[in-house]
């Protein structure tokens, strides 16, 4: 289909073979290049924050303290919600006049009235923040599973060898938990590359096209402009990219596991 000029809303139209024309158009269009940059910004920051905060929380919850179980349950709650629901209530949280987000920020420093979703500079960060809030527990849970699987005798042996806490973390904890962290990031990376529901509900790709990630553009081409052949080519580009990256991640993960 990606090699044709097919329009799904024109059933009687003659379908012509156009070769690589759709692909060439997509790869020469500046609008789509910009959506790729928005996707890259979203992916980079969400993966970085989720890896750091998720690992930090997992290390914290791996310690035994009172209320550990209840805290874990509270932390994983956002992950269980539907992205559409999360986006709707975060739009209320981000409300400039009545939202709690502005109130909390102004409590620490008086920025005055500002809008997260409506501002060109802040809107990309607003979706990063919501995705991080929602999906950090996922990274945390997988890292926690990795931490629980480390046998205690390794730390005991390290203590006998007079390794300090940082050395223990660097040489025992981190290598053991890394395959798990990479697995979590693989899932999140693939998911975020094609992120749609959360962004479309929260900002709708706006203001302007600052938060228009690739999948929103793809949906517009496919179901608003009805350029089915063209959008199929776009979908193929996205699929091949995810597939290629997925192969590398799996390879890296196996390498780490072998070590």
């Amino acid at each position, binding site marked *: 289909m990606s090699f044709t000029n097919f329009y799904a809303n024109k059933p009687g139209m003659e379908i012509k073979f156009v070769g690589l024309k759709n*692909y060439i158009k997509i*790869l*020469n269009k500046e609008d789509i290049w910009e959506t790729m*940059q928005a*996707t890259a910004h979203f992916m980079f920051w969400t993966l970085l924050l989720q890896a750091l905060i998720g690992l930090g929380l997992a290390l914290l919850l791996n310690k035994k303290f009172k209320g550990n179980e209840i805290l874990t349950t509270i932390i994983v709650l956002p992950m269980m919600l539907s992205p559409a629901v999360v986006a709707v209530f975060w739009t209320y949280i981000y409300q400039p006049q009545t939202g709690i987000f502005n109130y909390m920020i102004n409590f620490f420093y008086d920025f005055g009235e500002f809008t997260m979703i409506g501002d060109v500079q802040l809107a990309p960060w607003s979706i990063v923040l919501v995705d991080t809030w929602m999906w950090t527990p996922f990274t945390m849970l997988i890292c926690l599973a990795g931490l629980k699987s480390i046998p205690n005798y390794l730390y005991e042996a390290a203590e006998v060898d007079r390794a300090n806490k940082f050395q223990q973390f660097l040489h025992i904890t981190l290598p053991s938990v890394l395959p798990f962290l990479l697995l979590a990031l693989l899932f999140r990376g693939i998911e975020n590359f094609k992120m749609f529901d959360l962004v479309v509900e929260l900002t709708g790709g706006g203001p302007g096209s600052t938060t228009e990630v690739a999948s929103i553009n793809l949906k517009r081409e496919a179901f608003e402009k009805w350029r089915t052949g063209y959008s199929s080519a776009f979908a193929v580009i996205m699929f*091949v990219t995810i597939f290629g990256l997925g192969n*590398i991640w799996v390879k890296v993960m196996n390498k780490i596991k072998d070590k």
Partner: protein
Amino acid sequence: MNPENKSLLRRIFVKEPWENIASAVIIIGVVMLLQPYLMVLYTYSFNFILGGTLTFLIVSHFPSGKS
């Protein structure tokens, strides 16, 4: 095919180095696709990604050099 040629082919078509090359090509392609600096890099990014991915699929069936 004589055994010498066979061993030469086995040495050339080893999975690990070819997989590394394919992975590097994919990563270069993805960086080209997502970078905000040069349109021309974006234009040719998919060639790299597709080439790298297809190469990866083929070379992952090569025999491993470890065994």
